[in-house]
């Protein structure tokens, strides 16, 4: 295994359920590398949680699945029985929004942790007990030896989310899936939990898929951010680039309607319409109906994700372009412009060769004018 291999690798994942007009997921492709936080943003029903569950091999029954989901080199969708249980217990851990729903109200905090530890292979009761206390300490609970004896109702929401995180860490997973893990918490508690997750990621070199509806949180916290709409990825860029230069109209729309401190009511521009349900299908771009920039052709354009050229055009011999992509018909495609740059830097390849002839034809036309 090489270090360049992504921890989570989802390739062309499409998921269709009977009785729905559109796929839940359509050609979802993403990678999370070791130590990286990949943000997944989008509105309700965009497919964020389903994407995360795919990493656990928990896709809805009766659906038709295409594509591949690999975690740490293992093909997740073909796992069955004991191998699948081991995958869910040890390799990947998910943190949900509501810690009270994740914890059994009549069992002690310590039992929750020792149960997780047993799944992870720590079967000695005494060792598990000691490890549970250790884990609670690691997530910053002040008096871990007391907390293992308490029940969920005795702790606040922020403390319970720490317990859930301690449980997630019990098996020392390679990949953490945080599904709106801080959305139900007060902002001050959210900051504490995020700080904790960041520290743990640095210490344990886990990768993290961070699902949130809060764009400003994604901007502040993630390395790269991926925007989903109606089961599709519409844009992916490094966090600073996405927020400085959003390229897809939906990303711009989301940013325009997200409340910002220091903003005024005039800055808040709602996106018209509402997120599509599973009963709505689209012959073309799913966002076309709500898009302020849509043209008639968008209604029939089948979305394709294309690499982005850097803002202001390609820079010959400049620093490497940050990897980003978007699925919008109206975006100038990097592929049609890139060859000039690649030609200058001596890159080769089939696409470059054909592109270069186009580029020279274009410059010939320019000269003729």
């Amino acid at each position: 295994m090489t270090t360049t291999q992504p921890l989570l690798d989802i390739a062309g994942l499409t998921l269709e359920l009977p009785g729905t007009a559109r796929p839940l997921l359509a050609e979802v492709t993403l990678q999370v590398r070791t130590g990286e936080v990949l943000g997944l943003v989008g509105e309700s029903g965009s497919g964020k949680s389903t994407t995360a569950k795919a990493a656990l091999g928990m896709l809805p029954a009766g659906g038709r699945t295409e594509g591949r989901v690999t975690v740490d080199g293992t093909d997740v969708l073909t796992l069955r029985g004991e191998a699948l249980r081991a995958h869910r217990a040890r390799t990947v851990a998910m943190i949900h929004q509501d810690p009270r729903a994740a914890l059994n109200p009549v069992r002690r905090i310590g039992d929750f942790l020792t149960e997780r530890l047993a799944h992870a292979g720590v079967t000695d009761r005494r060792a598990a007990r000691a490890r549970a206390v250790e884990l609670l300490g690691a997530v910053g609970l002040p008096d871990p030896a007391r907390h293992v004896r308490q029940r969920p109702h005795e702790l606040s929401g922020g403390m319970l989310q720490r317990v859930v995180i301690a449980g997630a860490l019990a098996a020392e997973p390679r990949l953490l899936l945080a599904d709106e893990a801080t959305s139900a918490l007060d902002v001050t508690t959210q900051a504490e939990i995020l700080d904790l997750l960041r520290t743990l990621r640095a210490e344990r070199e886990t990768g993290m898929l961070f699902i949130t509806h809060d764009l400003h949180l994604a901007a502040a916290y993630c390395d790269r951010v991926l925007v989903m709409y109606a089961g599709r990825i519409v844009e992916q860029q490094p966090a600073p680039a996405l927020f400085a230069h959003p390229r897809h109209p939906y990303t711009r729309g989301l940013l325009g309607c997200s409340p910002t401190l220091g903003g005024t009511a005039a800055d808040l521009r709602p996106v018209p319409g509402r997120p599509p349900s599973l009963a709505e299908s689209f012959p073309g771009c799913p966002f076309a109906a709500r898009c302020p920039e849509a043209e008639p052709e968008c209604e029939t354009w089948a979305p394709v994700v294309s690499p982005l050229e850097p803002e202001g055009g390609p820079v010959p011999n400049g620093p490497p372009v940050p990897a980003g992509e978007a699925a919008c018909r109206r975006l100038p495609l990097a592929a049609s412009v890139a060859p000039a740059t690649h030609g200058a830097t001596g890159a080769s390849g089939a696409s470059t060769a054909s592109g270069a002839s186009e580029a020279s034809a274009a410059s010939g036309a320019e000269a003729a004018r």
Partner: protein
Amino acid sequence: MAGTQETGHDGPVLSVDALRKTYPLPGGGRLTAADGIGFRVPRGGSLGIVGESGSGKTTVARMLVGLIRADSGTIAVAGHVRGSRPPRGRAARLARAREVQMVFQDPYLSLDPRLTGRQCLLTALRLHGAQAAAADERALRLLDQVGLGSREAEARPHALSGGQRQRLAIARALAVDPAVLVLDEAVAALDVSIQAQVLGLLEEIRRETGVALVFVSHDLAVVQYITDETLVMRQGRAVEQGPTPHVLADPQDPYTRALLAAVPREGWDPAEAVRTVRAR
């Protein structure tokens, strides 16, 4: 702020003074959920109440509507000071309902699942004495005012989206032409695009009808868009109150500063936010 004459129509539509509420604690003693809370909201004005969970903001909201009785303090709506006893008799209860209406976080829980949008509004209108023909006409106007069409008018809550349900809940609250509309985390559960639409709608309604808004929220960024004044609560007390831009741009209380520091934004570092929060 004190000393205003509150009996005429020129005074603030909502005047609250020294509001206090305590709850008994299981082990004895009492929890102070609200203490010394006072504010004024003029006609068409809006007040934001912010704070963490457990700060007492919902307790204050519920006292305004009359769902909880205050231990002490006064609430006056349009110059009419509320008695310490709950209203007796149907007429008095309906009169109270016309003073202050409330919109909750989850419209799915606050709407009758059996009623269509139109029926829901008609029920509220007829309860308050509207004649059949007038009620029909008013229901359609209300639906139009909150941006719901004929399809939504005939749909039951399960067939509406979250944003449409909340619009319907707002329409029902407006049906009795209340002087004050209390919104408790009313946009917290909505998608951002829908949240912005509903905030725009509330602003429009406030301008057109002159209803005063009390907007309870944990989200400082949202509060800034919709309120003129902000009251910051911590452990039942108002730690800071004043014009919203001042409170947010130049917070005087360390608690307000901590709340602001914890709001994620570009270049924000959770570790730094935690330090500010702990220093409060």
